[in-house]
């Protein structure tokens, strides 16, 4: 029964026994999705919002959204159901195929949402998507293949090369703009006895994806990046080999202890100035003391080929609604509310996250120079991507981390690594 034991341990890792039972039940019994409720005259007034935002402040903010929504829509009975993020992610597939699913769910833009939409699991939100307020990039990211809006973005963050202003001043260095300046900066930092680049891999190997995404975007552009992630291009393409070639120049400046450090240990090291630069999102400093937060700064990932239009990673979070909801009117009314600047400001005001409201007409309730810098950078970008696993899926991310961690270890074996990567990627895709 060993494989059952494994499953049982899976529960411990965050599934919850009942969750898996329902998933197993679903696999054995309901291979055909329940009929969509839209148009079937369902009349439930209950409105369940299932959220994966578990921090205390975020939970309060989510509840505040529902309370505010109830003021203008007293006919509905909204309730909040919060679940730990990993378990939430695990269960959403089952949730969306249930006959009585949660009505509205927190989710993110990208490939998985498009997949859900392609299988008819998401409610069409075109009618409540605001005509202005969202940038064209964000509006495009909210639509499925046929152009139907299936996602309401509420906030986003960005990725950049984070550093501490006071440390840069102490070392007498400044922000680089191009890749060559960046490498020169790393070299000069190393000369001063500072480890230039933080990349903790012990529990966060997925961080390697940020380097790959940005290098690929800067060298080959967003269109090729998307095609590659969608499986239309091969990882054995010379353009991907070029990405690794360029990255190889930066590898000597990675903190060699990084492969034994957890994300937390790595960020602490960066905070203390033992590592100078961390390619990350603003969540890096979320748990740090206020005086550190005030000292945090970032620069844009350096430009490698000026001919390639600049794309940035700006992972968008927001809401989706289930196509099988028993209360489609209520779900749409809530989505409509969630798209308003007022709702997005309210949420960020209470949650105090370092996030930018997705609706361009909304203002940051706790504005900082850092947030403004992030917003300006994303607004100026010619294209916006989400992040490797958001633009593909977690199986593809697994193939990536295997390849890239090995590359960091054995940069001379690039050709073999790319071959393996292509094969892993294709297998995970099932062809």
């Amino acid at each position, binding site marked *: 029964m060993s494989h059952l034991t494994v499953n049982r341990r899976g529960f411990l890792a965050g599934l919850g026994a009942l969750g898996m039972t329902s998933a197993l039940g679903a696999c054995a019994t309901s291979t055909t999705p329940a009929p969509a409720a839209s148009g079937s005259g369902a009349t439930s007034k209950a409105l369940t919002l299932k959220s994966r935002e578990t921090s205390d402040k975020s939970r309060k903010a989510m509840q505040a959204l529902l309370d505010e929504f109830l003021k203008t829509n007293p006919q509905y009975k909204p309730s909040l159901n919060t679940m730990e993020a990993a378990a939430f992610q695990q269960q959403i597939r089952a949730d969306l195929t249930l006959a009585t699913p949660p009505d509205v769910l927190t989710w993110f833009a990208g490939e998985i949402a498009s997949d859900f939409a392609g299988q008819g699991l998401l409610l069409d939100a075109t009618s409540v998507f605001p005509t202005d307020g969202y940038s064209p990039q964000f509006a495009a990211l909210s639509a499925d293949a046929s152009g139907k809006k299936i996602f309401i973005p509420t906030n986003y963050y960005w990725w950049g090369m984070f550093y501490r202003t006071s440390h840069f001043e102490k070392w007498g260095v400044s922000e680089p703009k191009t890749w060559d300046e960046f490498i020169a900066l790393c070299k000069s930092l190393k000369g001063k006895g500072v480890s230039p680049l933080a990349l903790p891999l012990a529990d966060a190997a997925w961080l390697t994806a940020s380097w790959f995404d940005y290098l690929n975007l800067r060298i080959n552009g967003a269109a090729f990046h998307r095609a590659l992630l969608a499986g239309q291009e091969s990882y054995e393409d010379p353009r991907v080999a070029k990405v690794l070639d360029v990255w190889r120049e930066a590898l000597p400046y990675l903190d060699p202890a990084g492969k034994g450090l957890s994300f937390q240990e790595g960020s602490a090291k960066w905070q203390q100035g033992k590592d100078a630069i961390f390619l990350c999102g603003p969540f890096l400093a979320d748990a740090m003391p206020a005086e550190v937060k005030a000292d945090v700064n970032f620069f844009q990932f350096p430009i490698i080929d000026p001919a390639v239009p600049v794309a940035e990673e700006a992972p968008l979070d927001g809401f989706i609604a289930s196509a099988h909801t028993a209360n489609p009117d209520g779900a749409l009314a809530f989505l409509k509310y969630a798209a308003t600047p007022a709702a997005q400001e309210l949420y960020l005001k209470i949650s105090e996250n370092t996030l930018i409201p997705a609706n361009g007409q909304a203002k940051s309730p706790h504005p900082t120079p850092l947030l403004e810098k992030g917003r300006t950078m994303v607004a100026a970008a010619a294209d916006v991507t989400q992040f490797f696993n958001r633009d593909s899926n977690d199986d593809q991310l697994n193939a990536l981390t295997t390849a890239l961690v090995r590359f960091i*270890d054995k940069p001379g074996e690039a050709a073999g690594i790319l071959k393996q990567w292509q094969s892993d990627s294709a297998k995970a895709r099932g062809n």
Partner: protein
Amino acid sequence: MAASAKTFSRGSRAGVLSGGARRGAREGAVLLAFVLVPFAVEMFWTFWPALNSVYISLTRWDGISPPVFVGADNYLRMWSDETFRTALRNTVMWLVLFGGLSVLGGLALALLLDRPRRGVGVYRAVFFLPVVFSMVVSALVWRMIYQPDGLVNGLLTAVGLEDQTRIWLGDSGTALYALILPALWRQVGYIMVLFLAGLKTVDPLLHEAAKTDGATALERFRYITLPQLRPISTVVLAVTVIDALRSFDIVWALTKGGPYHSSELLSTYQFSTGVLGSQLGYGSALAVVIFLLTVATIVVYLVRSLREEETA
């Protein structure tokens, strides 16, 4: 269960009143219920899902869209799957090193701590202590020990072996062995307790007699202790094989099978493809393979030991 208990009490009262034959039939029914009810529960909660995963292993399925029947494709895919081969090799390695060393270590400790001595209880408790800790807690402690500037590297540097320091869990050459050590640290105490219990059943008179006949300590171990331990050894070996093949927590807590699958076991590979990933078909096929491996190892061993018992 409540219903069966009731039937039983009523049955026995009826027995007192009307005698033998009816009483036997009722008790038979009760006994049958005691067998059938747990069997039905087991069927529903264990075997039925298990059979389901055999079916799922013959499909390609992402958990949402209807599964596509692909026959033995998932099993054929394993042959060309480099990661599967690494995981299989590591699992065999794990079985040999973790299984072998924990049995040898546990037996050695048991022999050492069997004789009554001052403070022997303290020693037994110390060696058994790791079993009591949750594996995830142990993993946290070992993480600190293995850190780049942690205890191991600190000690090596202190005795002048700086060139031997490495990132134990982040190095593809050392990760697997760095995981076996904490797993052993725990298992040895457990095996020790099993053997201690076994040693209590060895008749001291046999040793006395052998000593009088001039047998050395080694001969007494070989010809008295070991044969007397045979029943407990069967249990120990079964437990060890099962524990080795289902090892998961320490690996998942420390490396998640990385770096780049170098410490991947079949169990962690199954978890990351079938449970965390969305390849439920392939994940189920891996689970079936783990199941078959476990059953095969146990059956081979049990059949052998039963046969030995018969001939003995």
